[in-house]
């Protein structure tokens, strides 16, 4: 079973005629994802790897009943591409693009509150329900079917932790890469809620990192609402106080939060064990599953 994506999901790939868009559309189809259309302005009427291309997402929805988009559009145009998805009444939009200006994402974020579309990303690897479908760039072969839900801010760290799980024979219901940008759509709390409500998810892995307060918020949510056991990992315990952190940002959040210590202790207080290494995360999950 799965959350958000399965083999009935009807996918339109925005930017399918680009190098990345084409390559990953093919990879997704090879994995079993139901890619029904592409959308690229000016390329309507073409075909890419057997998939019809439309000028707009609206057309893809009308003609092919697309309900989900995966966005491989360059950063300068990606904010607009996300707006197009949101305004096409899709159920789900997955933005892979890295490097979208933050102010564009703030406007997208506002729009999100006015539509029913769920956004995943941007700057994320996407999501996968092993054995059914994948949306995005995750390497399908390292995942396996099972009963662990995974949510992560970091793409490659997701792969690492999944590798530790799969190599012990622990499979996944769905793995969701939510992306590490300052402003994202679906966050930890949203993903935890989905896994908590999924009868087939028996344990959850949550991979966070330093910066922001999303992990602290997730810990509070777990404490109040989540009965499914959760194991955590926080990357960046040894990272120096960020040279990049502009100081106005620190004023907003106060400097006591956002550190690895504050995230780990918040999670521990919510009953979530946090592994020192990805191996230890797999140990905890193994214990949960008995």
């Amino acid at each position: 079973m799965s959350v958000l994506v399965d083999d009935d999901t009807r996918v339109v790939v925005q930017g399918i005629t680009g190098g990345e868009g084409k390559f990953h559309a093919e990879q997704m189809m090879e994995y079993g994802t139901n890619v029904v259309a592409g959308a690229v302005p000016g390329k309507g009427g073409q075909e890419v790897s057997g998939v019809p291309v439309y000028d707009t997402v609206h057309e893809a929805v009308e003609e092919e009943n697309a309900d989900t988009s995966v966005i491989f559009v360059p950063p300068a145009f990606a904010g607009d591409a996300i707006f197009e998805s949101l305004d096409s009444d899709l159920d789900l939009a997955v933005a892979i693009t890295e490097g979208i200006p933050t102010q564009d994402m703030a406007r997208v974020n506002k729009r999100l509150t006015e539509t029913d579309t769920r956004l995943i990303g941007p700057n994320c690897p996407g999501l996968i329900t092993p054995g059914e479908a994948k949306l995005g760039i995750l390497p399908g072969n390292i995942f396996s079917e099972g009963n662990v839900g995974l949510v992560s801010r970091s793409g490659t760290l997701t792969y690492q932790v999944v590798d530790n799980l799969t190599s012990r024979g622990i499979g996944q219901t769905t793995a969701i890469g939510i992306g590490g940008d300052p402003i994202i759509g679906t966050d930890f709390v949203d993903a935890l809620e989905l896994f908590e409500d999924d009868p087939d998810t028996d344990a959850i892995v949550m991979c966070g990192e330093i910066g922001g307060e999303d992990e602290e918020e997730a810990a509070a949510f777990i404490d109040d609402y989540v009965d499914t056991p959760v194991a955590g990992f926080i990357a960046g315990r040894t990272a120096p106080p960020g040279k990049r952190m502009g100081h106005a940002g620190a004023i907003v959040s106060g400097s006591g939060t956002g550190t690895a210590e504050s995230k780990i202790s918040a999670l521990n207080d919510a009953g979530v064990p946090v592994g020192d290494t990805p191996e230890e995360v797999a140990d905890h999950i193994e214990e949960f599953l008995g």
Partner: protein
Amino acid sequence: MKLHEYQAKQVFADAGVPTPESQLADDVDGVVAAAEEIGYPVAVKAQVQVGGRGKAGGIKLVEDEDEAREAAESILGMDLKGYHVDRVLVEEAVDFVNELYVGITMDRGEGKPVAMVSTKGGVNIEEVAEEDPEAIAREHIDPSFGMHPYQARKAVYDAGVDQSVARDVSSVLTTLYQLWDDKDGADAEINPLMVTSDDEVIAADAVMNIDEDALFRQPELAEMEEEASGGDELEQKADEYDFDYVRLEGNVGIIGNGAGLVMTTLDLVDHYGGKPANFLDVGGGAKAARIANALDMVFSDDNVDSVVFNIFGGITRGDEVARGINEALEQFDEIPKPVVVRLAGTNWEEGMEILNEDLVTVEQTLEDAVQRAVEYAGEVEA
């Protein structure tokens, strides 16, 4: 990308924010000439990208030519928290009665811009934020509408700014938001915004951070970037190669793909008793040449005693990584520092076939790779 003070002040002044008269100088005579023109007293301020310049001796108030020479000699060429000072701003010293703080930034928790005003300016505002958060008024802005004038006024009155300057401070805040919005700012701050005995406000400092991802649509600011960048030699090299790179104190060099995985590698080095020498993220989809550049980068740090390569391919391909490692190492008669390689994910098997195993140590798991690199690096020299 952070602008220098003199650049940010120019941007603010062009938009109509009152700023003190000032001139940039890069030698002692230049400082004196600028001071004569502006008229004493003046402040001589090091133009480097670090906070706490005053406390570190990088800002001096001078009353006459002798003091100006003395200040210029001590500041120009000094090493300020690792940054070489080669330029100073000579600036009219403003006689003030009050110091305020105004700033605009993105509140990532809310996903919205936020305007901040405080009457506790002129000091370390981060400390104020932590110890007395109520002393900073905050007003969130809807980015699709921009800042309404009432919001600027509300923030100013909430902060308790004196009635005599409230209108001018609101106007500065509105201008600051407009700039932040137009220029793709990450942060725009004035600390302190000085209030004179004549009830005038004037920006005595200026901070402007630009969203790097938006530089493509800010050509004028992108031109300033070359001037604005700086820092130590390795960091400049990282800028040239376009890597996310942070230099650290240890001796295990770390290269990986994806910030989360690289940070995890750092954490594991520490976990197994080693000390990371750096954070280097090659990013997604790196080709062979970029991998070779990453190795060149880490080899040029004298503190590095061993290197661990941790690549988990998704969009990045193992065969490209292996080619890059070979390319970088085959030019040496003798490998300068031992290199441990761990390849997983997309095309790792192809990568392992290509990789010249005479030049590197291969490990299958992250844990083994890190432990081996820590072992090779040995103790950090004191």
